């Protein structure tokens, strides 16, 4: 019998696809049903944020950097403000620091709830998406109460925060924490022990810790591989040393562990927020910073722990009111680079690629800027 001729074909998981979060094109080389290689093509969402920021004053850069990673816009605001404050040696008042931490952690919870919803949706369970977003609405209401915006906040400014929280914020925040904490067991009940969920997530997308570090992967993806590296602990910024929280780590580095790590991080963030609310002092919410902020010439790289990993800004100033160079670095960039490494040669199906992409929680604006 003559040998059957088989050949590999290429399929485009194109920019328009319900599962690639944002516009990302993955060129999959397939051998039958198995994926041999996956090459990401990015740049569909490139808005040249860095070039724009070179032409804006420091205060104007903040709303632009909101769009750098809009799911966790507070972190984007914060990392830029941190860089500018380090350059200009601005002392941030304590109340502002507490408010910043509350907003950052609430944003992390909101981002992880979206992760929960979209991952479940990508795997076919369409209902948890609405449950996750229902809880996220509570947080969105809190943000709207504070700064008027639900997604791109322009709240954390150089020197502090832009406005104080209204008096109804604290009781509403405590109530939101209680509700979210009570719903987490429900989410775990739907999915954690579900045999279909386990079959789709366990053992898929294994990341080797040393390889992950070499590729610059950080955040929940790295912690799920067993490396206990959380910038809030290992390279502390703001007032995180004051809070008592655990760092969620898992050992296998597969999809299921990445999912578990993020659910546990929601719990830890709830802990931090309630501690911050307890210890919220009175005082100024913003240091006296000129409207045309002019830090002395110099350069600095600061990094924070975002929900997707390490988010950093490399800020170069030449003494004028506009930054000379704003190089932003997002966690999803490295994770998307890393994706072909864990897909190549493992014999995954397209369904697995979808699951891996979902649990990496890649947000395209962070990659393309």
């Amino acid at each position, binding site marked *: 019998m003559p040998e059957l001729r088989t050949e590999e074909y290429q399929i485009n998981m194109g920019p328009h696809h319900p599962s690639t979060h944002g516009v990302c094109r993955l060129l999959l080389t397939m051998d039958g049903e198995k994926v041999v290689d996956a090459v990401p093509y990015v740049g569909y969402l490139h808005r040249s944020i860095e070039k724009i920021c070179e032409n804006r004053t420091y205060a104007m850069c903040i709303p632009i950097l909101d769009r750098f990673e809009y799911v966790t816009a507070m972190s984007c605001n914060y990392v830029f403000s941190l860089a500018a404050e380090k350059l200009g040696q601005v002392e941030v008042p304590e109340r502002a620091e507490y408010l910043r931490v509350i907003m950052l952690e609430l944003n992390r919870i909101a981002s992880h709830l979206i992760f929960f919803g979209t991952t479940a949706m990508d795997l076919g369970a369409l209902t948890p998406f609405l449950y996750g977003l229902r809880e996220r609405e509570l947080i969105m209401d809190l943000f709207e109460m504070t700064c008027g915006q639900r997604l791109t906040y322009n709240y954390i400014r150089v020197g502090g925060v832009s406005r104080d929280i209204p008096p109804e914020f604290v009781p509403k925040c405590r109530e939101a924490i209680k509700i979210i904490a009570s719903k987490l067991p429900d989410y775990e009940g739907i999915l954690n022990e579900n045999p279909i969920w386990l079959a789709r997530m366990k053992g898929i997308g294994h990341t080797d810790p040393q390889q992950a*570090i070499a590729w610059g992967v950080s955040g929940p993806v790295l912690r799920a591989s067993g490396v206990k590296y959380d910038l809030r602990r290992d390279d502390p910024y703001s007032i995180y040393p004051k809070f008592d929280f655990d760092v969620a780590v898992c050992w296998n580095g597969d999809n299921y562990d990445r999912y578990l790590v993020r659910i546990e991080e929601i719990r830890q963030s709830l802990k931090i927020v309630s501690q911050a609310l307890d210890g919220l002092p009175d005082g100024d919410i913003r240091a006296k910073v000129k409207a045309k902020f002019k830090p002395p010439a110099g350069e600095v790289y600061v990094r924070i722990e975002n929900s997707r990993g390490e988010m950093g800004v490399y800020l170069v100033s030449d003494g004028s009111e506009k930054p*000379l160079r704003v*190089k932003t670095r997002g966690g999803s960039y490295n994770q998307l680079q890393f994706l072909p490494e864990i897909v190549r040669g493992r014999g995954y199906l397209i369904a697995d690629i979808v699951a891996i992409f979902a649990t990496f929680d890649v947000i395209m604006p962070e990659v*393309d800027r």
Partner: protein
Amino acid sequence: MTQQELTAYILANYDGKLTLLDTGRAEPMFELKPDDLLEVTRRLRDDPQLKFDFLCNMGGVDTGQRLEVVYSIASTTKHLRMDFKVVLGYENPSIETITEIWPAANWYEREMYELYGIEVKNHPDMRPLLLPEDWNQGFPMRKNWDAPDFIRMPEL
């Protein structure tokens, strides 16, 4: 080793290849010559006292007078962080790739090439990353780049 001791350690052990720039901050900023890049970075990664295994950031900077490539590295085990830069001129800027030392540099170097025009030698996969494949309108992030629809902000 703390951040403060790091500067002293590097200045002592790296034969002056890394010259310290004064930033007044705990994380030191060094300057490196392009020819020493591969060797020094390999030593930084493998040094048992330092173990810089994590490349945080890498990018190009156009200061108006020169091009620079800045690297930020960190150690996941030793809680250390440092930055260093390589200074290049505007004519034929080129640099060695460090993807064999930190594979994370792969996309960073691709982006740096297409935005700044800094050629990266021996890169495994030099394709445009963010810009379209048929982009031929120069290197956008350079200070002297201009295009008909690039509108600068008016002075306030």
